[in-house]
């Protein structure tokens, strides 16, 4: 119980600090995407997981939105054009995205 409490507290602190300060157009991954802001998939990094990620519909051009995160920040739930996919951060970090401008 104590452990749980500590992790929750740590996660919440962490998420406060995690807000990006400046918006430089750099290559982002789905693991870094902010909640509820739609993004476009621009590719999948080479990995043995690549075909599996593609099979779930994460091909180039697909619109994805991070809906919510699990209590400790990992895994995350992603809307993939109408269905909800949950994935671990290490899997999400293989998905390259470009946030859709004008969403905010």
């Amino acid at each position, binding site marked *: 119980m104590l452990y*749980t409490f500590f992790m*929750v507290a740590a*996660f919440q602190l962490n998420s406060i600090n995690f807000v990006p300060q400046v918006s430089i157009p750099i290559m982002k991954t789905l693991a870094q995407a902010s909640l509820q802001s739609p993004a476009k998939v621009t590719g*999948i990094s080479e990995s*043995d*997981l*690549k*075909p*599996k*990620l*593609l*099979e*779930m*519909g994460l*091909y*180039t051009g697909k619109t994805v939105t991070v*809906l*919510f995160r*699990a*209590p*400790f*920040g*990992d*895994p995350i*739930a992603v*809307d*993939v*054009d*109408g*269905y*909800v*996919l*949950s*994935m*671990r951060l290490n*899997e999400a970090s293989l998905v390259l995205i470009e946030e859709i401008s004008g969403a905010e």
Partner: protein
Amino acid sequence: MRKLALFGNPNTGKSSIFNRLTGLKQRVGNFPGVTVDKQTGQLNLHGEKIEIVDFPGTYSIYPRSKDEQVVYDVISHPGHPDYPETAIVVADASNLERNLLLFTQIYDQGIPTILVLNMTDVASKNGLLLDIQKLKSHFPDTTIVRSNARIGTGLNELLEAIHQVGQQTAGIPGTASKALVTLEDSAGQSADTEERFIRIQKIVKDSVHQKSKTQEQLFSSRIDKWLVHPVFGYLLFFALLLVIFQTVFSFASYPMDLIDSAFAELAAWTSSSLPEGLFTRLLSEGIIPGIGGVVIFIPQIALLFFLLAILEETGYMARVVFIMDKLMRPFGLNGKSVVPLISSAACAIPGVMATRTIHSRSERLTTILVAPLMSCSARIPVYTLLIGLVIPDRKVLGFLNIQGLVLFGLYALGLVSALLVAMVIKQFFRRSKERSIFLLELPAYKSPRWGNVGLEVLQKVKIFVTDAGKIILAISILLWGLASFGPGNDMEMAAAKIPLPKTTDAAAADQYNNLVASAKLEHSYMGILGKGIEPVIKPLGYDWKIGISLLTSFAAREVFVGSLATIYSVHQEDDDPKPLIDRLHEEKYPDGRPVYTLASGVSLLVFYAFAMQCMATLAVVKRETKSWKWPLIQLGYMGFMAYIGAFIAYQLLS
């Protein structure tokens, strides 16, 4: 017989369709060479018998795991014994694009196909309009059927399609229009998948029209706000675990007691009404109690799977994995491992069977291997006896009873050792080659389909009784034989040495019978074995009488208490351990040292906390892993831990 196969993504209602097509005419078998169960059902259609095989749900023909590979193996080898004459592909109509990937892979192999667009209610709720004619124009060789397994539409159309396909395609071999990429070619699979989605996108654009924004999903994400919440999400899950544990632990005990007494009466009736002899003894002491020992587990299995099936059906189980993943990962376990482990705290048998829902093979295996370390209810009689025997009934810090503290410690020992062993397995014994893939769909919440729940319960009970039951029965008859027979007429001679009672009252007769039973057990093969292992168990602080009880309680842990009572000829009434405890206190070695001391008692407690003293669990593990390798490894490692643990405890305390 014509062979049909069912394919489809997970969460498409595929098993509902299988259940509706085949009803109770289902059986579970094996795919050659793999560990996944093969669900086969039979359908009688216009006088024709058709065999339907339900394949594991997959997102693609290219497998994520060894278990999913069966789909690839069958589809890519027309000579495979399970190669279907017609493939029924079930697709979620509300998510056609992703579902069409698997469909096109199978369609392109030239197998005659029927495409079932299921969950059409969800699709229309989500504002999707499907143009079947347009869809059909892209797949001219397929028959498209709309269905809704939930409200029960589309079944007749599907049956008609199955009949029609049989008329048209009988004997026509399929020709693949597009060869599959090999399993090793990851880049090729990526390219193939990307290419297919470009094609599918066009098809979907052409035949599916979006009217309005998705509602069903909004509803689900609103619930998810609470169910995966860092506080409420866990609270709800722990509350559910408590309900599951209570059900398996307490509620199941009522039917179990009934079964227990029914079989005891049946055994007594058999032995009194059949002519005396070997056959009657085999029947009343070996076979009937053996069958009773199988049937007794049915209430726990049925109740646990009833609850589990509901959790799976509603879509909640996917959320359990979601919120528990991070916590279980360091131990090499899956989010879904939590339910089997908690169930194992009541009984490892339904617990091991419940690991079925874990898709990752290595995580499932780890869960199975450590589940029997959880302190199950069969250990309670053993713990109660031994704690009453050697742990003083005193309070520490004014309010903590030491006996209660020790019992709590034993439960904690079970949990901690299960997690630690899982961690060791993850660190040292896992081939890192099989990378764990998480990627899971969080399906929209649905109300459970009770027909599916019922079939699931029935099937689990059937698997247990037919597959594990055989092994349990065989071992229990073997154990009975060892305890009931001895070399030559040693047993009879030993029994004859007991002086006959001088008076004729019941108490004297009871005492005489107890002494005879004790003498007989001592001179049986089991008694000889118990004496034989004495040198091995001496460093743990045990004598041969404990040795015999250790051996007999391989049947089930609680047998330890009954065996000790028999050996010390103590009459036990209403499971009250008091007379036995008093008798054990008096037990002394020839040199006057007491046998049951704090050291030997704690050593026994530790031994029972770790040792795999349960043949029924071994039988279930054999059934679930489909090989003797894993139950034997389990028996070995748990026995090793028990021996070392008991040795350390005894040597430290004596």
